[in-house]
Structure formats: C-alpha cells, structure tokens
C-alpha cells in the first residue's frame, strides 16, 4: 500500500500511547488527509468534515492506551473510531446529514460551491464530489462504507475488516456486492442525466 506505508507507525503509536504529543502529531499528519477523505465522502459540507477530522483524532488520543500495537492494524482502529464519530455526527445533525437525507438531489449538489478554494478548481471538484455523493447515496450503508474505506481511502482488506468489525472474507464478499450495486447506480445516474439533457 505505497500511499499509506509509514515505516515508523508502530513506534509512533507506542510513543503516543505514552503521552508523546509530537509523535501523535506525526500520525495526524500522515492519517488526517485519509480521515478527511473518508468523512467528506459521507458529508456535504467540507467544514463539517474538517471539524470532524479533528474530533476523530481527539477521540483516538483519549482511547489510544486501550489500543494494542500487536493486535489490530492502527489504520483499521483509527477508521473504526472515525466511523463511530460519523454516526454520532449523523445523529447530532440529523436534519442536515442523516442517512435518510443522503438521497440528495443532484441539482442541489451542483449549486453548493466551495468558497475556500479557487473557483476554477473548486467548481469541478464540487461537481465530482456531488456526483460521488449522489451515486453512493443510492447504496446501502454497509456498501457505502466498504467502498469508501477500500477505494476512496485505500485501506487494505484487513484494515477495512477491523474498521467494520467483520472478517476479511466477509469484507471481500461485501466489496464485490457493493461494486456491482455501484455500477448499477452509476448507470442509472448516467441514464437520468442523458434523459434530462435530451429533454
């Protein structure tokens, strides 16, 4: 997993467990973009994803003593915490981001600009983000989760298994089903867009 390999991960985790804030900072720098990616794939608002990213690491810092370096991969453990934080966020903001409202409309996504980036960059990004969210929203929650962790974050099957509390075999089966379901959702999305353009 070239993107994610960190040679000193085990050492940094052990140091952070002992209270070394700088070591934890290094883990943050390495994992924060991935956690953000995971959260933003489930949320509409970039700022919510940023706040929640920090919240996840605060939770991890507090719970780190209970983590056993030899037990489970740290990446899997981290994303298990991230998943819990996301569910808590859904509950707190149920009006905005509940699972029920994940069936967002494509039009509303297209108009949601990101004013923090150069518009020339942000508009295509926002469109892609919207397209991604709209397609994922058509899937079951566990399908969304496995696809996000595997293909958007880049976790290994084993790490995904830890994050989702399933066996690696169950994750593989789930991933296959989820990919086929996504393929159908993409085709449906494309045919809807084509129909709209024709109309």
């Amino acid at each position, binding site marked *: 997993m070239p*993107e994610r390999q960190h040679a000193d991960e085990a050492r940094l985790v052990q140091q952070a467990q002992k209270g070394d804030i700088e070591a934890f900072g290094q883990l943050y720098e390495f994992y924060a973009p991935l956690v953000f990616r995971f959260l933003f794939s489930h949320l509409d608002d970039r700022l919510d994803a940023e706040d929640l990213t920090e919240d996840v690491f605060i939770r991890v810092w507090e719970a780190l003593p209970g983590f056993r370096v030899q037990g489970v991969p740290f990446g899997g453990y981290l994303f298990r915490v991230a998943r819990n934080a996301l569910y808590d966020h859904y509950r707190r903001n149920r009006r905005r981001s509940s*699972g029920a409202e994940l069936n967002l409309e494509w039009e509303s996504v297209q108009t949601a600009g990101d004013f923090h980036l150069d518009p020339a960059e942000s508009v295509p990004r926002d469109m892609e983000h919207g397209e991604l969210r709209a397609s994922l929203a058509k899937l079951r929650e566990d399908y969304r989760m496995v696809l996000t962790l595997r293909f958007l974050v880049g976790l290994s099957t084993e790490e995904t298994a830890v994050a989702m509390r399933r066996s690696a075999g169950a994750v593989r089966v789930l991933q296959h089903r989820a*990919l086929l379901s996504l393929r159908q959702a993409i085709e449906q999305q494309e045919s809807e867009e084509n129909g709209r353009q024709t109309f």
Partner: protein
Amino acid sequence: MVARLFSKKHPTECEELLEQIAQNQPLPTGGPENEVYPMVSAANWLAHRRSALEPRPGFVRASRQRLLARLRARGGKRPWLHRHWGDIAWWQHPLAHLALVVLLVASGFLSASRLTAASRAWLPGDLLYPLKPMAEQAALLASLTKEGDAQLHIQFAHRRLIEAQSLVFENRYEQIPAAVADFDHHVSQAVILVNQMAGVQQDEARSLATELQQALTGQMGMIILLTNLTPDTSQAEFHRLLIISEDGVLGVQNVLPPDGGDAQHQGWKLIPRVSMHELGEG
C-alpha cells in the same frame, strides 16, 4: 458459498486489478478491463474521484497545530480511566493485580466470590469500581485459551450493558460512555478471537459465534428499551451500543454453522432492526 461463487465468476485477474485500484493506482477509464469486469469499472470510477475529496491546501498543517495546542492545553491528559503508567494502563499493571491479591488476602474475611458478588453492584464512577476491571483483567490473564478469553469477553460485555442499564435507572448518564467504550472493547475482542479460532478450532468457534450472536441479538431489545428511557443527550451512546451489537453479529456471521443462517435471521426478526435512517430520525 457466496465467496466460492464469486471466485468462479471473477478470476484472479479481477481481484488483482481491484487491489491495484485500492492501492491508488487507478486504471485508465474506458480500458479493456473496465469493459470485461463491471466491478473493476465501478472501482475505477471511484478511484478517479478521490481528488474531489482532498482537503484544502494547508488544512492538515493548520489543523495539526490546532490539535496539538488543544492537547497541550489539557497537559496531554487523558480521561483517568485510560491513563497510562509506563506503556500499559494502570489496571493492567502487574503491580495493580498484585495489590488486588494483597487486598483480598489482607481483608481475610472477604473471599474472592464475595468480592465478585459485591463488585456486580459497582458502577462506573463508584469509588470501588476500578477494582472491577482489574478483577476482569486478572480473570483474562488467568484464562489460558482463546476460547476461555472469548467467553469472558462475552460475559464482560454483558456486564457493561447491565451497568449501562443501572446507570440509566440511577440517572447517572455521564458515566454511560465509559460503560459503552468497554462494551465495544469486549465485543470487538470476542469477535476477533472467534474469527481467529475459526481456522483451527471450527466447532468451538461456531459454538462461541452462536453464543455471541444470541447474546447480542438478545441484548438489542434491552438497548432499544433503554434508548427510549434516556434523555436526548445520552441517546447517542445507546445508538452506539446498537451499532456495536449489530457489527458484532455481522462480525461472526461467516463463522456460524451452516444452519445458523436461519437461526440468525430468526434472531434478527425478534428485534426490530435499527437502520441508519431510524438513527437519524432519533
């Protein structure tokens, strides 16, 4: 069965391509592999949209500084239950276990069984509560088999749930997160151990998987009831208990005996399944 079907339908090449995409090496869109394998095409579609999820430039550095400043402001302290002495939590320290034994011996009249019986009433936040996880940790150390460990984890998870129930009845909602966190730990450990055993001790693993599945599905009814009894501020913890229980059941699904599928579905039917939709509706 399903896994076998997949391996027949989708050859190794497909698996390798999926792994390659997962490792951030997306294939060109519209390539031949995309045409042959629908799954590869879907995975590739996702991988090509990763860039839309990247954080703003400078976010990671700025938020790192903010996060570390927050941790420093707290003196790097963690909640006392998680604090460490050296590289292990204090209740896991051998000296803590020794102290417990000395306490038991010194008290003379207090037998281990009486301590265990008495400790059942102790709840998170009680003065003597720290002895309870210590005693449990000692029991886990004394258990020399994975099967024994898994059974203890199932038992301790159930205890945490009973504690959460008692805390609700006593209106001590602020202590519930500690019980939930420990419930999560014990369920996760039980699932991991059952899955580890599946390869070498299939019968024992199946028996434990069934036990865990029945315990968790049985407990879900109680959790739903408790959710309705708690104020809004504490409901998140009970929703989390449901998610942990549901994950626990799914985590041992592939270990269950072949006829366990029906039993499992019957178990689920008894309990109204709570979806993310319903959680969102609160």
